[in-house]
């Protein structure tokens, strides 16, 4: 089930729980792929950002969330991926 559809992604994001998002994604992603999740507010990362040794070989994708019910908190969930070639 989609994390966003169940509300899990929204809850994990406003709770700043990137580890929980990563654990839930683990079962869906291939083993060869290295990736990590980082959550950002408007100005900075709110969870640990990895040291990327070679940014040219790292891809990132973003997903925006406005918050959760009665908890307005704009956030960007960014997935960094490397080691795919």
């Amino acid at each position, binding site marked *: 089930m989609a994390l*966003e559809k169940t509300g899990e992604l929204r809850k994990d994001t406003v709770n700043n729980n990137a580890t929980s998002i990563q654990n839930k994604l683990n079962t869906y992603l*291939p083993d060869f792929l290295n990736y990590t999740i980082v959550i950002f507010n408007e100005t900075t990362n709110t969870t640990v950002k990895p040291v990327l040794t070679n940014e040219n070989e790292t*891809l990132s*994708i*973003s997903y*925006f969330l406005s918050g*959760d019910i009665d908890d307005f908190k704009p956030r960007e969930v960014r997935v960094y991926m490397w080691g*795919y070639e």
Partner: protein
Amino acid sequence: MKNKGQMFIIAAIIMIVILIILKTGVNIPDIMQRNRELEGKFEHDFFVNVVDELTKTIDISYHQSNNITNNVYSFANFTRKKMTEKLQNFNFLYLGVITPASSGNDIMNVTVINLLNKPINATLQLNSFTPVNYSEMLDSTSWTTNYSITQGQTYTLIVGYNGTYSENVTIVTKINKAIYVGFFDVTLTGSETTYKDKFQKNHTLP
């Protein structure tokens, strides 16, 4: 309904795998063409995410009705800042309308948000009343005005700017029910695609 979040991420992973396969199986021009197509699809999915979240801002602010428009404004600013960092362009005109729960005569509160990346000469007109004007409404600003209304009536609010843009927004007020109407006009531009959407959301507030 699309699988959001997770499917978005999985789609990106699939894209990468496809790219790896492409690199070993086709010539360079083909790779570049297919890469552009994939980037365009990827960009489109991201833009759908942005517009979905703009509308969800109303849903998550539902119980704090006085904050709805401010939250849409904040999320739109957040999105524009983030998209600018990605060298993408976010253009947004928004109209937020709220009426209280009452009967008889009351006030309709209307806010226009300009995130069009330029100053505009904005105009509002409710039914056949005299239009009101805000000249030189700067980018990243909002303008709030009030109208006297009779609950239970249906109104047409015309929002326009620069004499070239005009949209009608229908507002159906309800006796003893507070309502919120959001009108969205959004254009998102990336390296491969442009996404435009224009729509209205109506909510009866608790």
